């Protein structure tokens, strides 16, 4: 009734209408009629035109809701007031509406128009609140309206409205998951927002809607890191947790050296030069196997660590915990220590906070004990701590115990044993047991201490001690027959069944150590047999059996006696056991086959139990998460990925245009350091340069191809060759040279110096030819050369060691990750090209190069291609990066009346729309007149398919060729996209049909993820075929090469040698495609494809089968 008085005050007695009902309690009864009447009453108040009455009514209704009472029948009366002018009434109406709209969907629709009006209000706060309420109404019919509202709000001028839009995204998603794709677009847009207000909310939306789309973060990564400190605290938690996951996919394990080189690793890394050499030698050994370079942290990784560190000082425990887990999972071992102090500080907080923090500290102490050792005393237990906290602290203390501090800890434990809290005492005894097993030096001390506890007056303490002693003794029974004897004596006094049973088991198990006492104990036990508890009886039987087997002379009669007693026991378990034992040990006429093994059965050596922390191995869950706390995967938990083998391309985080200038300096710095997942530059360079030259020379793709393959096999030599060749040829065109010079001036290469001398001309034309040839020739030539070139790789490295010059070059080489170079060069090129030949240069969409080789580190092929990019003179976007790229004919030279058009699937992400497949089209004008305004017209597409045309080519001079990129969303089908290619004079009907393997993009998965995903794609989604591998496909390498050539998949690391796994996602719908090739003896193999889209799966099987059997 207290509520009544409160509202009396507020109302000032203005209305007494609803008074008696206000304090109405369900307990006080109240018949239906009065209930009905009450609501009538409220309705009347709501219908009145006095705001104060309405407000009063609404307050009472909201109070009903708060207390969990049903007020749904008032819906029509309330919803009428949604447009009420009084802001307070309105707010309460909103509260009501959000609560009941789900139940009264039709009526709720009446209110929608009000919010739609609100969305257009000039006041940002009203817009935001309208969106907030609109999106909270869980009525499926309004999904399109919500979608529209969210989209609009996402580009609102006010950051507050944008924040509200971010909040609305998960609401809509939970209402209708089908909207995911559209929502992801909104999220992508909002992620780019630069205000702190939005950052936290949008990352929250990201985590709820599409946590797997880690690629959306790349461009925003640095911004998020920099904004972090100014984001509100709750947003910080979400962002930090997300960035932890992100970093695990993008950076290398900072502790890699430890795991690789064990102890010496760190020293070598920080050590002086000669140690470095040492390191390099080791590396050279491991190169073929691990191809690891000394670890240097990615500056972006460092940025994250640096920017989160101040947040350890946050007042918010959740933020501190988030940073702590970030450091635990991401920081180099030497830096993790900083979090200990902050975590210890949290121990001062509320007991719930302590509980969670201690759980996490317990896990951390197993991995990184040293971190918390200085704070040992902070984990001392007070008698006033709640039991659950005590037990957790005990866990931490046990984990922290080592040779140096064990005496202090044991002294501390001694006081705990006297506690009144018996659960805690039992846990302490267990803890002592664990310390004893872990630290050999104190095992005897602990044992003695525990033995002393055996004379404790509290039975529970004694019982627990017996159980722990039993476990300890099992580890080294020979030395402790005294203790066993002592425990044998205890059977007279101790009554706790579990303890008695344990003692009996011990005596039976080690009866050979106490040959005199054991029969005596059995005698005593036989006497009291009938009064014992069941578990004790079972152990008496056990003891009797073991003694009979070892010492049958003394104990035969006793055993018979005990067995007879047991035979008539009330408990059938005991009767059964007696019967079983009798058959087994007492020799009879037709004793079973087993009886001769009786001794083995009973007296087998039992492994000592391992006393382990329950927190062991819990760190595979992200610390601080609910799943970690429960030690079970909670719904919606995102696995913390394993570190990648090699770092994915760091340049994806480079932000475009405005930050460009800023970035370059940083990038240069980075280039010096960043570990390069690729092989050294030299080989890579030789290939393309040479091919370029040779092509310009001969003009025939096939020839150049063979040369190239040659270059692959003997890279060192061929390099020289290529250089000389270059010299000759380059004299022809000066301009090419000039360009090359500029490009090469950065990466230090011998070629560049040489090419400087010669002068170039006809650069434009030449370049075009080069371009054309390259893409044409590669498809054939490189495929062949790949395997060889990979071999030559190792050779060349050996060679290089002898040659100092080259060695130098090599040293320099790994420091420059080619993708970045490409990017920079491409940038430069664009400038340059536009200077030189404006008319020709084609500003194709996708200024971001994003070379594809962030996956496929295992495949040399890709690496080489990545490198090949660096040297070419072409706009990188239009270069087919993959050697296995095949050119398809779109328009033959003859039908095209001199205009030849070819296309290939470049496997580059198509940046304007990630759901599209990038198709690179090459136009060659073979006529003698120029061709104008090449463009696409009138696409005829299957439903759902979309096309993104390339920008019109205004002019294609005679003899020239040009490359452009267009995007097609094939909707995950192999249906052809038909359209017209138009020139200024003619139109040609053409169609592009994708091979199934091009409808996907690589996906990174770890082995575990792969298995998990595969497990979810069984049955109908799995297609399996047996095949005989073709002659050339017997090796792993060949399989990888063929499969990746056939389909745009990435390789998944795999433990088994016999298996190769690949993963990808379909471009349009993102369905996983998993491919497994398991080799069998004798050239056979099993191909398995798991894919949600069965059609794709079937076609892919066919394609790969074909590729592998050839």
């Amino acid at each position, binding site marked *: 009734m*207290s*509520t009544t008085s*409160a509202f009396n005050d*507020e109302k*000032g007695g203005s209305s007494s209408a609803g008074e008696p009902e206000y304090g109405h309690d369900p307990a006080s009864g109240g018949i239906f009629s009065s209930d009905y009447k009450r609501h009538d009453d409220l309705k009347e108040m709501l219908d009145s035109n006095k*705001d104060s009455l309405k*407000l009063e009514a609404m*307050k009472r209704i*909201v109070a009903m809701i*708060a207390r969990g009472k049903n007020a749904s029948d008032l819906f029509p009366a309330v919803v009428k007031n949604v447009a009420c002018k*009084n802001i307070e009434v309105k707010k*309460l109406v909103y*509260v009501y509406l959000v609560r009941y709209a*789900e139940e009264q969907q039709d009526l709720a629709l009446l209110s929608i128009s009000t919010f739609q009006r609100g969305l257009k209000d000039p006041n940002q*706060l009203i817009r935001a609140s309208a969106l907030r309420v609109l999106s*909270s109404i*869980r009525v499926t019919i309004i999904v399109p309206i919500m979608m529209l509202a969210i989209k609009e709000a996402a580009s609102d001028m006010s950051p507050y409205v944008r924040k*509200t839009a971010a*909040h609305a995204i*998960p609401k809509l998603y939970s209402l209708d998951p089908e909207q995911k794709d559209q929502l992801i677009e909104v999220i992508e847009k909002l992620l780019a927002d630069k205000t*702190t*207000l939005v950052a936290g909310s949008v990352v929250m939306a990201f985590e709820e809607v599409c946590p797997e789309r880690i690629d959306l973060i790349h461009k925003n990564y640095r911004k998020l890191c920099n904004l972090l*400190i100014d984001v*509100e*605290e*709750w947003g910080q*938690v979400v962002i930090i947790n997300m960035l932890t996951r992100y970093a695990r996919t993008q950076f290398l394990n900072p502790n890699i050296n430890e795991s690789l080189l064990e102890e010496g690793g760190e020293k070598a890394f920080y050590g002086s030069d000669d140690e470095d050499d040492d390191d390099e030698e080791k590396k050279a050994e491991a190169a073929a196997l691990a191809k690891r370079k000394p670890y240097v942290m990615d500056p972006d990784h460092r940025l994250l660590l640096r920017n989160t560190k*101040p947040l350890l000082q946050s*007042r*918010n*425990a*959740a933020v501190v*915990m988030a940073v702590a887990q970030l450091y635990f999972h991401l920081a180099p071992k030497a830096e993790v220590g900083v979090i200990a*102090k902050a975590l*210890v*500080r949290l121990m*001062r907080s*509320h*007991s*719930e*906070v302590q509980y*969670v923090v201690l759980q996490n500290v317990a896990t951390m102490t197993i991995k990184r004990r040293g971190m918390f050792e200085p704070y040992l*005393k902070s984990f*001392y237990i*007070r*008698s*006033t701590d*709640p039991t*659950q906290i005590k037990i957790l602290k005990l866990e931490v203390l046990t984990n922290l115990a080592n040779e140096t501090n064990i005496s202090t800890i044991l002294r*501390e434990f001694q*006081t705990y044993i*006297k506690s*009144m809290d018996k659960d805690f005492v039992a846990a302490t005894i267990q803890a002592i047991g664990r310390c004893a097993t872990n630290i050999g030096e104190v095992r005897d001390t602990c044992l003695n201490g525990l033995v002393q506890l055996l004379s404790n*007056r509290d039975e529970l303490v004694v019982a627990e001690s017996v159980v722990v002693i039993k476990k300890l003794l099992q580890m080294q029974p020979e030395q402790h027959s005294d203790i066993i004897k002592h425990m044998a004596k205890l059977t007279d006094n101790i009554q706790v069944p579990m303890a008695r049973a344990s003692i009996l088991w011990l005596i039976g198990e080690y009866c050979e150590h106490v040959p005199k006492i054991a029969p005596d104990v059995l005698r005593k036990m036989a006497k009291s047999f009938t009064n014992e508890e069941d578990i004790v009886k079972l152990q008496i039987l056990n003891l009797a059996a073991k003694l009979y087997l070892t010492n049958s002379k003394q104990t035969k009669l006793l055993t018979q006696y005990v067995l007879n007693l047991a035979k008539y026991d009330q408990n059938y378990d005991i009767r059964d056991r007696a019967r079983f034992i009798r058959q087994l040990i007492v020799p009879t006429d037709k004793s079973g086959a087993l009886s001769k093994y009786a001794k083995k059965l009973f007296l087998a050596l039992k492994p000592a139990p391992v006393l382990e922390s329950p927190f062991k191995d819990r760190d595979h869950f992200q610390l601080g*998460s*609910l799943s970690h*706390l429960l030690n079970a995967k*909670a*719904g*919606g938990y995102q696995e913390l990925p394993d570190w990648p083998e090699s770092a994915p391309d760091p340049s994806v985080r480079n932000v475009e245009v405005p930050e460009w200038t800023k970035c370059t300096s940083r990038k240069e710095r980075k280039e010096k350091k960043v570990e390069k997942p690729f092989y050294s530059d030299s080989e890579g360079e030789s290939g393309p340069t040479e091919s370029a030259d040779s092509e310009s020379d001969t003009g025939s793709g096939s020839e150049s191809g063979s040369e190239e393959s040659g270059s692959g096999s003997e890279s060192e030599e061929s390099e020289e060759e290529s250089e000389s060749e270059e010299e000759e040829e380059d004299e022809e065109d000066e301009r090419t040279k000039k360009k090359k010079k500029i490009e090469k001036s950065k990466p230090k290469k011998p070629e560049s110096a040489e090419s400087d001398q010669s002068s170039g001309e006809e650069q434009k034309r030449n370049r075009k030819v080069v371009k054309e040839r390259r893409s044409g020739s590669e498809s054939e030539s490189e495929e062949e050369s790949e395997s060889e070139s990979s071999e030559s790789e190792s050779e060349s490295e050996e060679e290089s060691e002898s040659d100092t010059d080259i060695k130098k070059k090599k040293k320099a080489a790994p420091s420059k990750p080619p993708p970045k170079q490409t990017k920079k060069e491409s940038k430069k090129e664009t400038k340059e090209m536009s200077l030189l030949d404006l008319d020709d240069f084609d500003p194709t969409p996708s200024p971001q190069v994003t070379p594809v080789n962030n996956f496929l580190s295992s495949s040399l092929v890709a690496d080489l291609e990545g490198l090949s990019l660096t040297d070419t003179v072409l706009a990188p976007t239009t270069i087919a990066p993959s050697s296995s790229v095949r050119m398809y004919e779109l328009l033959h030279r003859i039908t095209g009346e001199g205009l030849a058009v070819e296309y290939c699937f470049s496997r580059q992400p198509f940046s304007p729309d990630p759901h599209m497949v990038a198709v690179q089209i090459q136009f060659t004008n073979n006529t003698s007149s120029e061709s104008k305004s090449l463009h696409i017209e009138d696409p005829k597409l299957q439903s759902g398919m979309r096309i993104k045309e390339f920008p019109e080519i205004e002019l294609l001079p005679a003899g020239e060729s040009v490359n452009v990129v267009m995007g097609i969303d094939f909707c995950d089908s192999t249906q052809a996209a038909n359209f017209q290619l138009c020139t200024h004079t003619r139109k040609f009907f053409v169609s592009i049909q994708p091979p199934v393997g091009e409808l996907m993009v690589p996906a990174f998965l770890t082995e575990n993820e792969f298995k998990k995903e595969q497990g979810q794609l069984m049955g109908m989604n799995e297609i399996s075929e047996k095949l005989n591998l073709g002659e050339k496909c017997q090796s792993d390498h060949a399989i990888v090469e063929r499969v990746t050539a056939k389909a745009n998949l990435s390789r998944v690391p795999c433990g088994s040698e016999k298996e190769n796994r690949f993963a990808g996602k379909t471009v349009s719908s993102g369905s996983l495609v998993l491919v497994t090739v398991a080799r069998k003896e004798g050239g056979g193999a099993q191909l398995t494809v798991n894919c949600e889209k069965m059609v794709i799966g079937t076609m892919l099987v066919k394609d790969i089968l074909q590729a592998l059997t050839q």
Partner: protein
Amino acid sequence: MIHSLFLINNSGDIFLEKHWKSVISRSVCDYFFEAQEKAGEPDNVPPVIRTPHHYLINIYREKIFFVSVIQTEVPPLFVIEFLHRVAEMFQDYFGECSEVTIKDNLVIVYELLEEMLDNGFPLATESNILKEMIKPPTILRSMVNTITGSSNLGATLPTGQLSTIPWRRADVKYTNNEAYFDVVEEIDAILDKSGTTVFAEIQGVIDACVKLSGMPDLTLSFMNPRLLDDVSFHPCVRFKRWESERVLSFIPPDGNFRLMSYHVNAQNLVAIPVYVKQNISFFESGSSGRLDITVGPKQTMGKTVECVLVTIHMPKVVLSANLTATQGTYTYDPVTKILVWDIGKLNQQKLPNLKGSLSLQSGAPKPEENPSLNIDLKIQQLAISGLKVNRLDMYVEKYKPFKGVKYVTKAGKFQVRT
């Protein structure tokens, strides 16, 4: 994130429920009740309870269980911290956080919860912003009610959320501009039987009450900032300044707030202001025991130790106590088995002593352990670590504020083992 919240009192009544997404039946609380029963003490209820479809994360504060329902993965501390914020907000609004006040202000509570979370994700948790939107219940509030018909729309909208300093409301005006800082230090210690220190540390906080007009920019510096080993700040404090200059620079929230918490370097030996001589023993025969406690001042830096209070959790077998105190009064509650001795001010000349006999349940074995003593105390005008505020400067605003700093030392978790 947070799906629903139930407030439950000690007797198991759900007196408030709030859902931020679709409604979850209150029957989900049955799992909580089950866990509560199993735990016995409210302190021992596990903060995270797993049910077949949900996870319950709860805190226990002021005799109320705040039980939140979670459906998917969320950092547990996130929820726990938030629930504590809710409790603090109630305290801020209603002076105390109790079942009665919550029930009295049900509508305000409900509105607050509505504003604090949106779809289960925290929206506005700064008291300054919330107070702008939802007025605390005062006389003023009832006046506002009568004139709401003409109330201005903007006034009740969360303009504070738009600000870059969300903790401070705009247009603050005071006639008396004042800023007070309380440096409160607590000694956490465990002393063993013989009086030697097993573990001791000093934790401190600086609570502020700032009532300044406009947008003042304050700088607080210490004489000996090196003492501070570990610190955590209110979001208003500029961390960079602290890192480089060891000064606190901030634009304060309006009203009461905790500026910082700190931990004093453990290497500095902690001065223990009192000593305790105790002798508690239980006899094997006659089911009785004896108790003799003397408390005296030790390192008090010349200040008086006040509000000394000794609390002892007696073993279950102790039925009653028959004691005499030379100073203060004692009470023994035979139900909870808690003996409280309220001494008051410590007198240097005549040390307070509590002596007498305890009677035990007849026939029961004598208790294994002697109960430990928990001590409370307070010393005014002293920060036991020696921390001193040097000066407070104000920038931006022109007026001259009234400034004050107060020091207090208290016992935190101060326990004497026996």
